[in-house]
């Protein structure tokens, strides 16, 4: 294929991401499990890169957890989402950035439904006025926070203190990237690279010095799937998904995993503990697991943030072997200390997983 032809085709997989001025909404799951990731995103974009990222305490959940658990109908979710968009409009913004992949998928689904059924959009606008007295509006650009970090990846690389390189060998770290299904599979045209060539995380890793690992089950779901874990008796489905991925990536000896979804880092991280305790199997070196990170945590690490300020002590799989590999300094004595130096308490050690 001629080069121009390739460029033309690849251009169709691109996404328009405005440079600045965003209304930011947080994620319910990430605020609970990876609270430092969102704080890091805001710190990097606002304070390090000087971008205008606005957030308000008045925004709520997108309703995604309840919607995907079949506990609230779609019109209720749409009204919640219309309220979020109305808040964006009220504060004078047109670009909407969300922290959560579930939310991103749901926003895309809602916008597409409104486009397809204008009478439903009218009904939701009326619901919004009746319930909240807010004016209906839609964002001009809807992006996920990983889109923004992807957009700023070279600026982050320019300010980086570390590269994703093994300091002992000089070789790039072998990184598994795991894309959230609701980012690239539901509405492929809304993500960078579409469903076939999701590039959002690959671009970050390449820019920060790492090497991407390709393996057979690369595009397999992490096992999050709401119905698969909400009920205990179903959790074997979730665990088996994750197990299948790890069995597939194991021969390629990855150093770390980067994710852009709230559920993926949680399940890829925690299920390594469950697999170790039930099957006696670990996937990292010397009885360790493979550390799993959010893209903000990786951005924070390369920019020289303190690993404990990034919340890496809340991970199930210990991150210290990777920090040593890159050469990132950390104080083991401060691992379980809060911001004010108060001891937070130490979790019980797993039996199999180091």
């Amino acid at each position: 294929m001629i080069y121009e032809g390739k460029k033309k085709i690849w251009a169709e997989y691109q996404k328009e991401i405005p440079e600045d001025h965003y209304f930011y909404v947080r994620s319910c799951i990430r605020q609970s499990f990876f609270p430092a990731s969102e704080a890091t995103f805001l710190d990097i974009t606002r304070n390090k890169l000087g971008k205008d990222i606005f957030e308000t305490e008045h925004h709520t959940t997108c309703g995604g957890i309840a919607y995907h658990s079949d506990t609230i109908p779609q019109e209720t979710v749409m009204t919640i989402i219309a309220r979020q968009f109305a808040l964006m409009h009220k504060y004078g913004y047109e670009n909407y950035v969300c922290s959560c992949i579930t939310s991103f998928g749901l926003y895309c689904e809602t916008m597409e439904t409104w486009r397809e059924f204008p009478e439903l959009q009218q009904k939701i606008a009326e619901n919004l006025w009746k319930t909240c007295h807010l004016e209906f509006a839609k964002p001009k650009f809807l992006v996920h926070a990983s889109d923004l970090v992807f957009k700023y990846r070279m600026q982050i690389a320019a300010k980086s203190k570390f590269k994703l390189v093994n300091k002992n060998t000089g070789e790039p770290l072998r990184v598994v990237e795991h894309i959230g299904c609701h980012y690239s599979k539901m509405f492929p045209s809304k993500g960078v690279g579409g469903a076939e060539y999701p590039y959002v995380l690959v671009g970050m890793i390449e820019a920060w010095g790492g090497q991407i690992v390709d393996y057979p089950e690369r595009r397999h779901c992490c096992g999050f799937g709401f119905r698969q874990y909400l009920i205990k008796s179903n959790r074997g489905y979730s665990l088996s998904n994750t197990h299948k991925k790890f069995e597939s990536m194991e021969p390629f000896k990855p150093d770390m995993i980067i994710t852009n979804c709230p559920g993926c880092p949680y399940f890829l991280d925690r299920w390594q503990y469950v697999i170790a305790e039930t099957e006696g199997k670990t996937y990292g070196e010397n009885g360790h697991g493979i550390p799993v990170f959010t893209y903000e945590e990786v951005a924070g690490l390369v920019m020289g943030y303190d690993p404990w300020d990034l919340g890496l002590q809340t991970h199930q799989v210990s991150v210290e072997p990777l920090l040593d590999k890159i050469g990132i300094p950390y104080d083991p004595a401060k691992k379980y200390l809060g911001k004010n130096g108060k001891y937070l308490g130490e979790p019980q050690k797993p039996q199999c997983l180091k």
Partner: protein
Amino acid sequence: MIDFGFGVSPSSRINLDKADKEKFNELAIAEPDVAKCMACGSCSASCTAAAFEDTSLRRAILSLQNGLCDDASKLLSHCMLCGKCTMVCPRGINTRHLILSIQKIYSL
């Protein structure tokens, strides 16, 4: 080991790199028609034994291609060699003879 009340389900993933293809290659030499099968399922649909037992030549051929000999053995164990499948095969495969060759080569 901890019992969480749930666990890893057996995977249906087949690693073809690890599958033993030696006997299937032997079968393909003895019965070249096995490569003609397009898995339409006419044989299974017309099978007399399939109404009573889990019998399917289509699935048996697929299992053999994937190196799952035990599965194939179960799927052919109730074949009565009536030959109805031979009459309906759109590819004209002598399925009755193929089943006999499978039983001979795989010692079923």
